[in-house]
C-alpha cells in the first residue's frame, strides 16, 4: 500500500479535510454525515467519547462492588448449604489443589476487571491532559483492553453451567447468586466503556490542527 507522503509527514484524514468511516474505511469530504458505502454514521472525532467512557466505566466499577460482596454460587448438599463469592471460589479451588483453574478464575474475575478499570482511567486521563508520551504503548493498551475485556465473562458462564448441571435433587444442587448478575453487568458496562473510547484521540495530541 502506498503511503501518504513520507513517514515523517503523515497526515490525518481530518487534516486533509476528510472524514473516514470507522466501520468500512471509506473516505468522505469533511461534513458528510452518513457513509455512502455502509450507511454508518460519520464522525471525524467523537466529541462525547470521554464522557461516555467515564459514564460506562463508573457504572462498571459500581456493579463490580456487589459482584464481590454477594455470593456467586449457592450450593446445597445433603449435609450443608454454602455460598461462595468470587474470591471464596478461588480460595476453595486452591484448597482442592486446582491451582491452574484457580489461576484462570482469579485472572478472569479479578485481575482483568481491575486491570481494565485502571487502564481505561489512564487512557481517558492521558487524553484529557493532551499527553504526547508513550502513544504507541497507550494504543497497545487500548487494543489489549478491547481484546481481553470480554474474557471476564468466564466466571458467569461457569456459574451458568454449574447451575444447569448440578441439579441432583437431594444430593447436591447449585444455583446462581445475585453476584453473577452484577458481575455480568460490570463486564458489559466496561466493554461499552472501552468501545466508547475513540483511539484517534491518543494520536491527536501531537498533531498540529489547521
Amino acid at each position: 500500500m502506498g503511503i501518504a507522503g513520507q513517514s515523517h509527514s503523515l497526515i490525518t484524514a481530518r487534516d486533509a479535510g476528510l472524514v473516514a468511516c470507522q466501520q468500512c474505511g471509506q473516505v468522505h469530504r469533511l461534513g458528510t454525515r452518513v457513509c455512502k458505502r455502509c450507511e454508518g454514521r460519520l464522525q471525524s472525532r467523537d466529541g462525547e467519547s470521554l464522557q461516555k467512557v467515564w459514564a460506562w466505566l463508573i457504572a462498571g466499577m459500581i456493579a463490580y462492588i456487589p459482584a464481590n460482596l454477594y455470593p456467586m454460587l449457592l450450593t446445597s448438599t445433603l449435609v450443608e448449604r454454602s455460598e461462595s463469592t468470587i474470591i471464596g471460589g478461588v480460595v476453595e479451588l486452591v484448597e482442592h489443589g486446582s491451582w491452574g483453574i484457580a489461576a484462570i478464575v482469579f485472572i478472569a474475575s479479578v485481575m482483568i476487571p481491575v486491570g481494565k478499570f485502571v487502564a481505561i482511567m489512564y487512557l481517558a486521563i492521558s487524553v484529557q491532559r493532551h499527553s504526547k508520551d508513550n502513544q504507541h504503548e497507550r494504543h497497545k493498551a487500548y487494543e489489549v483492553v478491547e481484546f481481553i475485556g470480554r474474557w471476564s465473562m468466564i466466571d458467569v458462564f461457569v456459574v451458568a453451567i454449574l447451575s444447569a448441571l448440578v441439579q441432583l435433587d437431594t444430593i447436591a444442587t447449585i444455583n446462581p447468586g445475585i453476584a453473577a448478575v452484577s458481575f455480568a453487568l460490570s463486564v458489559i458496562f466496561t466493554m461499552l466503556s472501552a468501545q466508547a473510547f475513540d483511539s484517534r484521540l491518543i494520536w491527536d495530541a501531537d498533531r498540529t490542527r489547521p
Partner: protein
Amino acid sequence: MITETTPLDDLVACPQCDTLHVASALPENARAHCQQCGIVLMTSQPAAMARILSLALTAFIMMIAAVSFPFLTLDAGGLHNATSVIDAVLAFNDGYAFPLAVAVAFFIVVIPLIRLSALIYALGPLVREQRPRQGARRAFALAERLRPWSMAEIFIVGVTVALIKVAGLAAVTIGPAFWAFAGVVVITVLKDQLICRYSIWESLDKATA
C-alpha cells in the same frame, strides 16, 4: 503522495488513528500496516471469500447441532442429569436472574448465529460472482459490529473450568454437543482471521458497480 486530485475512493484512513494512506494493489498474502499506529489495515488473501463462506456455513450447521444434542451429563449417587446448552441458559431463569439468562443466550447462541447468517447472506452472492443481495452491506456491517459480543469461545473455557470443578463431586460425561460447540469455536477463530474488512467492502463495491 496525496494531492487534490487523488480520488477519495483510493484513500484509506486508519480507523484507529485517522492517518491517511493511499491504497494500492497488495501482493498476495501480504499485510499492510498503518504507518502511524501499526494496526493491520488490509490483507490480501486470494480465495479468502470462498473460504470464509464455507467456514461460516460449517459453523452454522455445527452450532445447530450444538444446541440440539446433549451437552453434558452428570451422574452421582444413582441420580442423573443431562444438560443441553439451552439448559445452561435457563439456569438463570428464575426471578432476578432472568435478564442474565437472556444475555447469556445472546452471547453464546443468538449473536454467533446472527453473525454467521449475516455473513452467509452478504458473502454468498459474491462468491458466486453475482450482484450482492439487498441489504448485504448492512448485514456485513452488523456481523462486524457484533464481533466483540459473540462469546462462544469464552463459554467453552467456562465449561472446562466448570467440568474440573465438579469432577470430584460426580461423574461427568461429555456429549456430542460439547464437541460440536468446540468445533464452532475453532472454525469461528479461523474464519475471523480471514476477514479483511477492507477487501470485503471493496468486493461489495465492485459487485454492485
